[in-house]
């Protein structure tokens, strides 16, 4: 990998980091467990590694943005996540921010 490729990858990672959180919060307006959430995001073009998504869910939950519960489904215990009340409020604000940034970038471009 060249220096330019490396730089691009790092910048892409930085750019994606905030977007991933927003995408996860948006998707969790409906309840999901880790694997189905990943599939749902991927089906809409937002691919996320398992090793990024699952710890992110934990972190968002510890920050109070998600609520979770263990439940049995298909004879297997799974942890289901959804947006908490605080999460909904934060998500609404983040979405506004995202729309504003998007519109600014569109004007700049």
């Amino acid at each position, binding site marked *: 990998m060249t220096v330019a490729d490396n730089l691009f990858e790092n910048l892409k990672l930085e750019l994606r980091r905030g977007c991933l959180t927003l995408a996860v919060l948006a998707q969790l307006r409906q309840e999901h467990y880790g694997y189905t959430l990943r599939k749902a995001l991927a089906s809409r073009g937002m691919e996320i590694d*398992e090793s990024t998504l699952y710890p992110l869910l934990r972190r968002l939950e510890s920050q109070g943005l998600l609520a979770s519960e263990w439940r049995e489904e298909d004879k297997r215990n799974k942890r289901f996540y959804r947006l908490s009340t605080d999460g909904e409020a934060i998500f609404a604000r983040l979405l506004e921010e995202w729309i504003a940034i998007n519109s600014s970038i569109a004007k700049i471009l």
Partner: protein
Amino acid sequence: MELLDRYLLAVRKHLRWQRQDDIIAELRANLESQLEEKEAALGRPLTQGEAEDWLRELGPPIQVAARYSPQQYLIGPTFFPTYWYVLRMALGWSLAIYAVVSAAIIAAQMLHAGVAADHISQTVADLIAQAIARAPGILISVAAWVTGVFAGLEFATARGLVKLPPIPGMCRDWNPNELPRMEESQSTHGKKPRSYAMAVGEVVFGIFLLTWLLLVPYHPYLLMGPGAAYLESLPYRLAPVWWTFYWWIVALNLVQLGWRFIDLARGTWQGPRTVQNIVSGAMGLIPLVVLLTARDHVYVVLKDRFANQLPVGMSLHEINLWAFRGMLVILVISGLNLLAEIGKAGWGSYRNRVVSGR
């Protein structure tokens, strides 16, 4: 699947024990769902090779576990600039102190051992080579201590175990009016003004230095390293005048530290330190004068006056004489430095007056 069980076991080993069961149960459910779907799509179980490829894609167990840890760095962006500055200062000073102490130990060894004239250069070269070989160990140890202290601070503050008092200029309710004035920042005559991290670093390093200084009399190893044991075995020891010298040095460091802290608190760290430098320089002369005016210029005395007088009496006299001459040279150099500093300040002030009068 045995390979998945082994993988999860390996991840588990790197997780914090309080969360191991919960995280592994969740990870297992997610990965088993994924595996089921893969196998359903293929219409058969994964082969060993396919399972290995799949797990390889998930990432090494240690990295997967690390993503669950709340802190991914030893020293974060808040402390890093200060840490980096303190580390450089500490390494530079330790090297300088180590060089001086090594030179003193080598001189003491030569005098005590009474090396024959034709072997002196060889012996000195050997001793210097030994001292150089020990230097990396000392520097690594200093770096480890500084890193350890800052990593501890990062750990404690990140978890709310310790709440640091608000550092001026760093908290959210900082006051723009306390920013250094333009004329202060510009009067460093083209020199790059001290950054905030550097100013904090100077205070932190000053605290380290003062702590170290206060510990040295009780733990000579901190100054001499392994040489402390050797000096202990010598028949002579330092004269009481060194205590007066020592307390002056402590006082000097205390004044400098206080001054730097006040600069930081008032937001004037970027300004010139002309007065501070002159006062510090003048204060620095006092401990030297204390030593030079010691009665009969005695700096080193025999531990046992009667038993050791004959074998080392001659060396002792030489040590005291050379110590006196050395200190005299240092006093002259320091005095000239001080005069140069005063001259520079006077010239700067005169030039500013002339320029502003035009």
